[in-house]
């Protein structure tokens, strides 16, 4: 087999694999409900955590509308939607807030509940959580004493 044919074969194979996976499931953004679904997820999540006495302290006196808009933009961007996240990095936005691991997982649990209530599939839920998981190291304060 010459190099040229091999390259051609490899290219068509990867094209086939891509086509097959695209056919198997729609982009994550669509499975989250597109613009409307993502906005609703972000709104519910921020409302829920801000109103939760165990999680709300770092949202006190903050502009919740702005956080909701930026969170929706971030989820849209991460899930392959037509957005570009314009906010600060997770490290910058959480610096000094002393976010504990319990607070981080509390918010994750709320997100899971919201996705479940909105009938987002288990596959899409896991995919979204997998995209968000690496942010933990920038959000949670190392050896944080938790809420003071």
């Amino acid at each position: 087999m010459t190099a040229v044919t091999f390259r051609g074969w490899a290219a068509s194979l990867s094209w086939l694999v891509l086509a097959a996976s695209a056919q198997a499931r729609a982009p994550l953004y669509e499975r989250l409900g597109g613009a409307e679904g993502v906005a609703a997820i972000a709104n519910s999540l921020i409302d829920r955590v801000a109103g939760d006495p165990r999680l709300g302290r770092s949202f006190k006196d903050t502009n919740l509308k702005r956080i909701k808009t930026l969170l929706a933009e971030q989820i849209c961007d991460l899930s392959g939607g037509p957005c570009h996240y314009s906010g600060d990095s997770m490290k910058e936005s959480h610096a000094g807030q002393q976010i504990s691991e319990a607070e981080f997982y509390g918010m994750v649990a709320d997100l899971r509940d919201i996705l479940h209530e909105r009938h987002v599939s288990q596959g899409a839920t896991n995919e979204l959580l997998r995209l968000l998981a690496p942010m933990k190291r920038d959000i949670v304060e190392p050896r944080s004493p938790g809420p003071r």
Partner: protein
Amino acid sequence: MSSFARKTWLTCVGALWLHAAHAVPVTVTATAKPGASAENTVLIFDPLNATPAAGHDTAIIDQIDKRFVPRISVVRTGTVVTFPNSDHIRHQVYSFSPAKVFQLKLYAGSPSTPVTFDKPGLVVLGCNIHDRMVAFVGVVDTPYFAMADAAGKAVLNLPAGRYRLRVWHPALASPVASREVTVDKAPLTIELNVDIDAAPSAVADWPE
């Protein structure tokens, strides 16, 4: 002491004495209606017969416990204002006021670029992240200004001359008409009534 040093010293003292001789104490007392305070009422004296030299002042507006400190400032046109951040969290200071439009990201522990207030007028500051934070910067073309203390009183030392007195407070329910003031040799006392709204719904217009 050399004769040169003595001469210089005498010239300095002389200049100070001359300056002091020209400055006349002007006491302003602002009185609010019962239940309201005239504290921080802004008093601006614009000279009508002299042009004061441009200033190169600096000022600081800090962020402490999700508040701007001070909440109200008056600065001369051209003043360079530094925005430190004493909080452990970030802030995003902005202004949409025509006198100065800017946005400044303040991260805990890292200094930000100072902002030059180069046009006279009122600048209202907010924070994108904490929408209840608000501060006011009155930018004026005169070095003669003051803010009333808790008793509504302010004392200024003004060179003799004619001035226009402008009065402002963010919670003024009705504007205070600007008035002409003549400062002569004798100390001067000015009494003002200010209608301060205890629960204002809007920011009072800036007296241009």
